[in-house]
Each structure stands twice: as structure tokens, then as C-alpha cells.
């Protein structure tokens, strides 16, 4: 039972990778969106596994409960169901080269970052292979701690974010309204 966290990690990692491949490969946008829902739920579980319970709950509440429902709604609204679905393979070869290059670049960057960290603290054995689980509770992820941070240190960004959301809502309403002057 000692490495149960690692087993769970691999389980969720497998689900996440599989469902994200599903998102980009599936022909039907509705199914893609549903794969994304699976991805978000397993990502939330991963957050919980990494110890930020509050973010896990928030992830489900915001992404799965609100954003993805909106996505599905729009997909159903514009009825892509009857359209001829695109052929995934047609542009795959060309873009694969670009994607591989970008991925290689990212791997390079990650390696650089980890080398940089290695000089500062010893993360060679992953990090903190063994921690006392009960002592950990104080440190991360609980609603109280996050709210203290939010209303003391990050008060200004918090207010700015609320403005951003307000502007977003108004903008969405204005853009989505039927425009009178139709484009010919």
C-alpha cells in the first residue's frame, strides 16, 4: 500500500493522456468535448492527489460545471451534427513536423530548468520522497489558506480579475447578440 499514490498517479495520467488524444482525434466535436470533460475530471483528481483539494473542487466547479456545458451548448446550438466531418489525417503529416519541433524545444527547456533547480536544492530523488502526511495538511491547498492569500497578498489582482470577468460577460453578450447589419 506504500506506493498507492504512484499507482493512482499512473492511473490518472493514463486517463488524461488518453482523453486528450481523444479530444484532438475524434471526428465529432460533441465527443471531443466529452473527452475534454473526462480530462478535466481526471485533472481535478490529479490536483487532489497532489494535495490541493480546493483547486480540485474548483476545477470541477468551473471547468466541468460551467465552461464545458457552455461548449456543449454552443456545439449543439450550431448543429455541427449534420455537417460532413473533416478528415483528420489530411493535415496531420505537415503539422506533425512542426509539433515535434516544438515538443523537442519544450523538452530542452524543461531539462534546462531542472538542471537549474538541481544546483539550488537537491531534487534528485524527486522531491521529498517521504513526508509525514499529517504534517502536510497545514501547508497547501486548503480553503482558509487560499482565502487568506487571496484577500491579503493578492487583493489587487483579485479585484482586477473580477473586472475582467465583468467585461467578459458584457463582451460575450454584445458579441453573441444577433447583428442587425448582416454581412453580404
Amino acid at each position: 500500500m506504500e506506493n498507492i499514490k504512484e499507482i493512482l498517479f499512473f492511473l490518472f495520467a493514463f486517463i488524461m493522456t488518453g482523453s486528450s488524444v481523444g479530444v484532438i482525434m475524434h471526428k465529432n466535436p460533441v465527443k471531443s468535448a466529452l473527452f475534454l470533460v473526462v480530462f478535466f475530471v481526471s485533472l481535478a483528481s490529479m490536483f487532489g492527489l497532489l494535495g490541493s483539494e480546493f483547486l480540485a473542487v474548483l476545477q470541477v466547479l468551473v471547468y466541468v460545471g460551467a465552461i464545458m456545458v457552455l461548449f456543449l451548448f454552443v456545439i449543439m446550438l450550431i448543429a455541427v451534427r449534420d455537417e460532413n466531418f473533416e478528415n483528420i489525417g489530411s493535415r496531420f503529416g505537415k503539422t506533425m513536423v512542426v509539433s515535434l519541433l516544438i515538443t523537442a524545444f519544450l523538452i530542452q527547456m524543461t531539462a534546462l530548468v531542472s538542471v537549474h533547480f538541481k544546483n539550488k536544492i537537491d531534487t534528485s530523488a524527486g522531491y521529498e520522497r517521504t513526508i509525514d502526511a499529517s504534517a502536510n495538511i497545514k501547508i497547501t491547498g486548503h480553503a482558509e489558506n487560499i482565502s487568506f492569500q487571496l484577500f491579503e497578498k493578492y487583493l489587487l489582482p483579485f479585484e482586477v480579475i473580477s473586472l475582467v470577468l465583468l467585461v467578459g460577460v458584457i463582451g460575450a453578450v454584445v458579441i453573441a447578440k444577433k447583428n442587425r447589419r448582416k454581412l453580404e
Partner: protein
Amino acid sequence: MEWYESEIIWVLIKILLLFFVIITGAGYYTLMERKGAGYFQLRYGPNRAGIFGIFQPLADGIKFLLKQETLPKNVDIYLFLAAPAISVITAVLLWSSIPFTPLIKLPVEVLGKSEVNLQVLNPNSGLLFLFAISSLSVYGILLAGWSSNNKYSLLGAVRSTAQMISYELSLSLSIIGVILMTGHLDIYRIVEAQSKYGWFLLTIPGFLSFFIFIVSVFAETNRLPFDLAEAESELIVGYHTEYGAFKFALFMVAEYINLITISFLTALLFFGGWNVPFFLREMLEGLWWGPLVGVLFFVVKGLFFAFLFIWVRWSLPRFRYDQLMNIGWKYLLPLAIFQIFLSGIYLYIK
């Protein structure tokens, strides 16, 4: 290590116990609804299976099991089958973080533990957890409507989803008053706080937030007067038109489980949960079965709200769709924001 020392086994026992209690409860809630409907309409309701129709839920269950499973021709088969399962899973999952009892302090020799709590897990952000899980229940409806490949189903699903999203806003804003007054998201602590300050219903912002909560809940669970999703007379039955046999039964079970959850949650948040009246509190001090009396009070409160749902359903007519949206966005949402403001002032003065 003895078997009773393992935490996992205790959790499994709790889960099994809860599951059977909830499923049975949902069954008997349907009986209560039918009986209630009968008496509201001056008839008897089911009274053939056993005395007072006590075996009626069992008979219904067997009937649903024995019916032929039909699959319509042009449905999306995986999603079609997944939809009722998602509904039931989210409904049952909600019960994992609802506390029924205070910590029961037992003599160690009875069970090998000194403290027993009937809550399966106690997340630090319990209320948010509940709302997160309940926001997943939209998917059951949306998928059922979409995969059935049927106009009525899709219309019902879209209506229902729009309605649930709109009212979820005022629902989640309405509990902010309670959270502000307690300072915690943990349901257990919210109930404990009410033993100090009295029921939240009796405070001014608490009453307002209860009002918003209960109205949004009717919309959220697709009950009359807001049952636009099913609307028998317009949309046949909405999103589960194409479902038959046990798949239909699963939708029904999910709906009734949700109703029970909501009624018990109302009792927890606004009516003091398992707190007993003050004159009983001193009598029960120090007795190990004292908490069980509290549970009795809690169940009675919960059942009252369960009855309220039936009462309203058979008394009020249905709203029109535009009226529903107007109430949600133009009245309830501003009221909910005002209620947050009011709770702030209330706390400041206090």
C-alpha cells in the same frame, strides 16, 4: 492488525450502508409522493400492495426490471447508456460528504474505536464539493437529450440545462450568506455554529438566503413549478422520452435521490441539522446515545422538506419558459447579491 482497525474497511461499510439506505429511501419517497398526490386530489393513491401500499416501491422495481429493454434505432449507443448511469452516480456521490450525526463517542470496547462519524469523507471545502458534484448532474440530462436523436428530447435537455445553469448562479450565491456567518465551508462546522448562534433561518440575511435557496432548488431539481424540462403536456417528458424499462427507472431514482439530498441539505444549512432544542441539550449531555436523538430531529426536519416538494408540486401550476428565465436573472440574482451585501452589514453590526 484487527479488521476493525483498518480505515478503508470502515469507509466501505459506510458506503454500502449509505447506498442501500439511499436507494430504499428513494423508493419510499416515490411512494410518499404518490400517496401525497392521492390525498391532495381526494383519492387514495396506491393501496393494493401491502397495507398503505407499503410494498409498492418493491413492486415498481420488479416491474421495471422485468420489462423488455429496448434500444431505439438511431441513438448514439454509448452515450445513450451512459446518461442514466451518470445521473445516478452523481446523485449518490452527493451523499458522500453529507454529515448526519455529530461525532458519536462510544466506549472503546463496542467497536474498537472511540469516535464514530457516519460521514464517508469530510472534505475541507465540503459545501463547494457538494456544488461541484451537483453541477456534474447536468451531463446526465444533456447527454440523454443529445444521444436520443429526438427533437423533444433535445429540446427538453437544452431547456433543462439552460435552466439549471441560470439557477445555479443564485443557488451558489445564496449560500454565501451562510458561509460568511460561519467562516467555514465545512458542513459539519456550519451545523456546529448553529448550536451557538441559533438557526440561520432566524437571522435576517439567513432568511433571505433561505428564500433564494429554496426557490433555486425547485428549478435546479426540475420540479414543479419549474419542471419545464419534462413538461408532459408540451414535450412528452423531455429528455427521457426514449428511455424505457430500467434505464427510465434510473432517471427516476436519480431525481428522487436528488430531492432527498436537497431536503436534508436545507435542514443542515438553515435549520440547525442535528441540533436539539435547548431544554433537551442539558438532558442529553454526556450520554453516548445523545447524538442519536439529534439524528432523529434531523431526519424529521429533512422529511418535512421532502414533503414540501410534494406539497408544492401538487398545488402550483407550471411557469412559462420566459417567466422562468425572468425570475432567475432579473429577480433572484440581484436579490442574491443584495443578500451577500446584507450579510456583510449584519456581521459588521454584530
